């Protein structure tokens, strides 16, 4: 305000004041949003650092905090946390690698070849993308039971891979479509075979989208709760999400701090990855969904 020339009209002054007031209001609204967003997250973090058995009187004061819950998760003989971690990691690695490979084949075919049934295939994928696997849960439960894959990590893996194909294929196909065709055509002229063009020319160029797909499919089992809930039965087969839920579900108030500790350990790395890749993830998803 100090640099305003004295002879400015009153109207000018008020406009500037009004602008300041507006910015103030915006900051105020954002501050409220910040509190609403941060409070539950901070509360959960504080819970994870508390060891009192009565959690609802637990302290939010950092002076009383300790790492006991984390230590319990990793060292206590009754803790299954490491087993769950191993299960989840196993599922994640298999799902991520198989999905990326299958999907890049499918996407390559749809993007670069014109073959009979291509259009219908694309429509089928588009349609199947709309139906979550979850909708067939009655059938999945009975079918897995029949073939003996209930309470088995391979059953879970199969469903993750199959269910993810349509959506991931569209993401990758959208990316392949943006790569110039002249590249593979000139390679074809030079006598390169189908597989060679694919592996040596297109795959390296598609690395960004493939790593996103791989990462996405790697993280999904860490975050998914429903499918493990349907498929898995015994605690030693649980994945992290399901195991943590059972902490809370079994004896609500007793184990909440352990849930919180376990949850913090998953949420922090995943949230970091999301925040780093957010721009790419959101725009990638957007283009995948609209380009079809």
């Amino acid at each position, binding site marked *: 305000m100090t640099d305003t020339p004295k002879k400015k009209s009153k109207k000018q002054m008020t406009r500037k004041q009004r602008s300041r007031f507006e910015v103030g209001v915006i900051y105020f609204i954002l501050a409220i949003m910040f509190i609403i967003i941060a409070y539950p997250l901070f*509360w959960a973090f504080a819970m994870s650092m508390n060891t009192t058995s009565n959690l609802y009187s637990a302290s939010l004061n950092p002076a009383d905090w300790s790492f006991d819950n984390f230590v319990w998760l990793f060292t206590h003989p009754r803790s299954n946390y490491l087993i769950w971690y191993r299960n989840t990691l196993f599922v994640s690695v298999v799902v991520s690698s198989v999905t990326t490979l299958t999907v890049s084949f499918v996407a390559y075919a749809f993007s670069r070849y014109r073959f009979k049934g291509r259009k219908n295939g694309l429509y089928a994928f588009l349609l199947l993308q709309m139906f979550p696997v979850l909708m067939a849960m009655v059938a999945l439960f009975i079918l897995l039971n029949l073939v003996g894959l209930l309470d088995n990590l391979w059953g879970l893996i199969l469903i993750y891979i199959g269910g993810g194909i349509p959506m991931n294929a569209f993401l990758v196909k959208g990316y392949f479509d943006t790569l110039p065709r002249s590249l593979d055509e000139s390679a074809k002229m030079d006598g390169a075979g189908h597989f060679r063009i694919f592996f040596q020319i297109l795959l390296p160029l598609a690395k960004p989208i493939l790593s996103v797909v791989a990462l996405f499919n790697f993280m999904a089992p860490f975050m998914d709760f429903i499918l493990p809930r349907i498929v898995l039965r015994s605690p030693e087969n649980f994945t992290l999400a399901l195991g943590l839920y059972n902490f809370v579900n079994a004896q609500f108030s007793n184990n909440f701090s352990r849930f*919180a500790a376990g949850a913090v350990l998953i949420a922090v790395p995943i949230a970091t990855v999301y925040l780093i890749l957010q721009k790419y993830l959101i725009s990638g998803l957007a283009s995948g969904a609209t380009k079809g």
Partner: protein
Amino acid sequence: MADNDNQIKPSQTRTEDLNHSPKKAMLLSIIPGMGQIYNKRKLKGIAIFIIFAAFAVVSIEFVVSGLQGLVTLGNEPRVDDSRVFLVEGILAMIFAIFYASLYWINLQDAKNEAQKIRDGWTPGGVIENFKNSWDTAFPYVLIGPGFLLLIFVVILPLLFMGFLAFTNYNLYNAPPRNLLQWVGFDNFTRLLTLAEWRQTFISVLSWTLTWTFVATTLQIALGMFLAVLTNDKRLKGKKLIRTVLILPWAVPGFVTIIIFSALFNDNFGAINLDIMQPLFNTTIPWMTNVMWSRIAIIAIQVWLGFPYVYALFSGVLQGISDDWYEAADMDGASRWQKFRNITFPHLMFATGPLLLTQYTFNFNNFNIIYLFNEGGPAVRGQNAGGTDILISWVFSLTFTNSQFSMAAAISLILGVIVATFAFFQFRRSRSFKEEGTM
């Protein structure tokens, strides 16, 4: 070898035909491979014949008995498992369809090649032919593994569910102890006419639709409001603001929902103890009263869902040229007018289909309903909880009540609703395709 000789003979007699007839090739191909031999592609014809013959020998029994089993669903209780009969029947159907389409392709191929020969094309040598067929087959080789997985993991369960909806599979009539019967539309009629079922169905369906509409619209509105707000040029520290606002999207949903369900706990939750009690001197039964549960769930979903919309909208807003707004300023447009006529249409045009997916997502948003209070609280006179949406109702019918057929019937209704949604999105993306991406 004797077989081969038999096949070569007819082709040799027909080489004398002056006008090579596509129709004849197609008719000959009724026995697969014959038309190709007529087209002077002996090796190909023999290969096709052998493949078809082998396929028929191996699978004909499976297909026939499978289809039979699909009709009867087994004869002897405890010996025949109707569920196995159903699965085998569906597999037999898929096999039969696959076989039929191969057969059709074989007919078409014979016809097309004969047509080409008639127009003066001569098939090249064996190696060249082989290379050509590898070229045509290659895309199928590529999509093969993915397609197989899709058939077994997605399509087979969906079909199985569809069939299940027309049987009487429940706790009291469960294979392998009992046999299943086809009951036609009984499950659907019961759902719509029996008082208890109908009441539950109607209340769950209406809550599902309300929930989808209200929660999604609110999260879009909040996302839009914040995006417009933070797009203001006078703000500082935008990067930090954006990061914090996207945070709820980055934290795994199941974690936050469980945290919220603890915060909303009636007796010990921080919301009642720290906010409601001191400020309003009252507590609210978030978990045990239907209306308050619904309000809490919608609020949590808005918290969870707005960041994605916000991030999308922020991206679009940054791309809108300033010229629009400057022109509007010249005309003396008010802020609201600028929003209505410039910002809003831009946002909707760029993100329309994605917003539609948000609605379908919430329609099937099982996570939040189940993790908050497992669809509760219980409601008198109906077998679904007060916040149960269709998909979570299906879940409890399957896993707690073992009402498998009814659950399948409701899933089918769910599927029809989603398909209707899909149809609209389908048309949208088709118009995208016609612009050249396809």
